[in-house]
């Protein structure tokens, strides 16, 4: 019964909170909300140990039959294999830390219980998504995650802007979901099942490599992944999703929602391996997204938006790895990213709370001395995001991707260059943020020092985002492959074309230099302000470019012009509703007939008799005519 308990506990507590959060007190809400996730992570650990103990054989549990029609069955079946164990552990443990932190962050919110009900539901849906044994159940979790993101992004619903952001997130991801639904229909049509292992087994026999149908299916799946993971061209919802409370952002970015796309592609890797075109598309999307989002992150003023663009960029790295066939590298980066991005978001949340909900980085500054605890953990998170060599988890996971994007069978020099450019940009935007917030002169008074409830999860995450890298070391540095070995039964090993220690050293050296160079540039830009930098910043067109990047490469304006405006225009034309005219006409005709019939009811007896007589004459005439004619 164990695997099913993992999502069942958060769902159960979400139900309790939804029904009774107004009647139970603050402490009870805290205990139920955090306790359920803690319990769930405990069960997840036990299940993980069981899977590890059984030589990583998957643990499958049939809970009940959900749908059964001739030719199609779908059950509530959970499957714990190496891949879903990794995701489940990250979701529950990082989710637990975020929950604990949120009890401090949301302390004074009047809708405290509603918040935790949605958070528990979010974690539960994500767990269903990663544990599902068939694609229909996965889709249930997939849509559940979408619903919860809507509820939580629009949590402070009294501000219309938040409601707008929530709707945007919901609708934009829905575009991808539609593509994914079509992919599921096609998979069912060809394989006759939605069971994931069966599909993965069958696809090899049904299609040859590069077949049109499988390519289309892979591209449609990619469409779903792109929507949920906020990749080009559907990334526009994520920066706006910052409207929700900060723990929500941490949850969306670190443990749930945006990683769903990475999971989906990794899960369906057999499909993607048969479709080289779709794999190339994945890699290109990843490479393009990581660069574009990096530039956007460079010029943001809102601290949370920097982190949002940074997430888009880091997920871009994961997509790049997936596109190159480096499946386990993508999952490895997901794990380390979950740690340091949750850390960064919650650190930013601590800063925001301390400054009385100030999110503009240009109004912060000098917080290094005022909030030393937050400063240190934030610095550790930033170092991990920037991939400072040797000591941070981000270094090991990101450099693996950068190296494999060139050396793997699906790799390309272009990907490698994009990855390196991304490394430079990451260093720049991350430390621009650090310098703006924690260095320089103090601009805002500190209002509230975050308590230990908020700081404990940060310390744990800071520890994790440092040591998590040591489970997978590159060839050049000891060659430990604990993580990829663990994933071996589910995800095939990456095919390496260019095996060369010297090249690997070179790649790591370049990316390390670029990351450190990014930090140096940020230092010049924000703190030192040398003449060359000020001159560079006053170049013509530079302001426009900054604005362009800040607006996310004007993707919103593009969609506005391409989709929203024409739609509004068409609906304006059709405001009187063409189709409705037909039905209105029909109703009017009927009304006219009614009036005519009512007119015959004159109340004059003799007209009635006349009517009866004329009718009788008509009937008799017809009768007689038929009698004699035929």
């Amino acid at each position, binding site marked *: 019964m164990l695997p099913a308990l993992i999502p069942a506990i958060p769902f159960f507590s979400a139900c309790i909170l939804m029904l009774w959060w107004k009647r139970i007190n603050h402490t009870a809400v805290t205990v139920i909300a955090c306790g359920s996730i803690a319990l769930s992570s405990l069960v997840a650990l036990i299940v993980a140990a069981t899977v590890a103990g059984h030589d990583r054989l998957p643990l499958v549990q049939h809970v009940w039959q959900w749908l059964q029609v001739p030719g199609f069955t779908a059950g509530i079946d959970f499957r714990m294999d190496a891949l879903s164990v990794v995701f489940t552990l990250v979701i529950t443990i990082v989710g637990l830390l975020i929950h604990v932190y949120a009890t401090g962050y949301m302390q004074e919110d009047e809708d405290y219980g509603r918040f935790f009900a949605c958070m528990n539901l979010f974690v539960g849906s994500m767990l269903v998504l990663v544990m599902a044994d068939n694609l229909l159940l996965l889709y249930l979790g997939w849509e559940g995650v979408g619903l919860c993101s809507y509820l939580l992004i629009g949590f402070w619903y009294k501000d219309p802007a938040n409601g707008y952001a929530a709707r945007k997130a919901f609708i934009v991801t829905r575009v991808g979901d539609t593509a994914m639904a079509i992919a599921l229909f096609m998979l069912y049509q060809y394989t006759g099942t939605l069971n994931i292992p069966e599909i993965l087994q069958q696809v090899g026999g049904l299609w040859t490599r590069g077949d049109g149908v499988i390519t289309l299916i892979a591209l449609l799946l990619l469409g779903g992944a792109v929507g949920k993971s906020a990749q080009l061209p559907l990334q526009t919802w994520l920066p706006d999703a910052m409207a929700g409370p900060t723990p929500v952002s941490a949850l969306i970015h670190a443990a749930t929602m945006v990683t769903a796309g990475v999971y989906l592609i990794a899960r369906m890797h057999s499909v993607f391996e048969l479709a080289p075109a779709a794999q190339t598309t994945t890699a290109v999307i990843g490479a393009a997204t990581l660069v574009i989002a990096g530039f956007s992150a460079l010029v943001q003023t809102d601290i949370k938006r920097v982190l949002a663009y940074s997430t888009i960029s880091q997920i871009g790295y994961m997509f790049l790895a997936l596109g190159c066939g480096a499946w386990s590298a993508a999952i490895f980066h997901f794990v380390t990213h979950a740690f340091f991005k949750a850390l960064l978001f919650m650190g930013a949340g601590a800063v925001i709370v301390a400054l009385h909900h100030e999110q503009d980085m240009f109004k912060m500054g000098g917080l290094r001395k005022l909030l030393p605890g937050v400063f240190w953990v934030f610095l550790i998170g930033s170092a991990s995001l920037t991939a400072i060599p040797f000591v941070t988890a981000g270094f090991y996971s990101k450099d693996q991707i950068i190296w494999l994007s060139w050396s793997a069978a699906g790799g390309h020099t272009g990907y490698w260059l994009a990855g390196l450019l991304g490394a430079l940009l990451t260093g720049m935007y991350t430390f621009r943020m650090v310098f703006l917030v924690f260095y320089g002169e103090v601009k805002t008074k500190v209002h509230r020092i975050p308590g230990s409830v908020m700081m404990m999860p940060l310390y744990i995450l800071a520890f994790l985002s440092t040591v998590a890298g040591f489970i997978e070391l590159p060839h050049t540095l000891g060659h430990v492959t604990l993580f990829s070995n663990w994933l071996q039964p589910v995800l095939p090993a990456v095919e390496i074309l260019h095996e060369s220690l010297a090249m690997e050293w070179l790649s790591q050296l370049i990316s390390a230099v670029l990351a450190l160079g990014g930090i140096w540039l940020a230092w010049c830009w924000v703190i030192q302000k040398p003449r060359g930098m000020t001159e560079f910043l006053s170049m013509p067109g530079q302001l426009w470019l900054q604005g362009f990047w800040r607006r996310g490469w004007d993707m919103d304006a593009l969609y506005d012009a391409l989709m929203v405006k024409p739609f509004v225009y068409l609906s304006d034309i059709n405001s009187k509703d063409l189709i409705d005219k037909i039905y209105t006409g029909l109703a009017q005709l009927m009304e006219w007939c009614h009036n005519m019939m009512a007119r015959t*009811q004159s109340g004059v*007896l*003799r007209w009635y008799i006349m009517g009866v007589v004329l009718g009788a004459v008509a009937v008799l005439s017809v009768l007689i005519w038929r009698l004699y004619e035929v």
Partner: protein
Amino acid sequence: MNIHPTTAGLLLAGILFVLGLISVLIRRNIIFMLLSVEIMLNAAGLAFVVAASHWGQPDGQVMFMFILAMAAAEVSVGLALILQLYHQLRTLDSDEASRMKG
């Protein structure tokens, strides 16, 4: 001219019926309309009797009995209605009683 008695009887019935019908249609006095309806009923009854004698069957005469009984009932109800109408409207003109418009 030699007309078959049945044909003659039916012709008479037809003529009577049409006369009754026309007077129902053109009369405005409601008592005359009632009388005309009686004439039409009797014309129908005559046709039944003629047909009965033509086929040597008693059914037509039985039917005539029914018609008589019905006519009596109809007259009693009809006269009651006419009295009420006169009470209400102080006239016997049927066109005046047009309040039951659609």
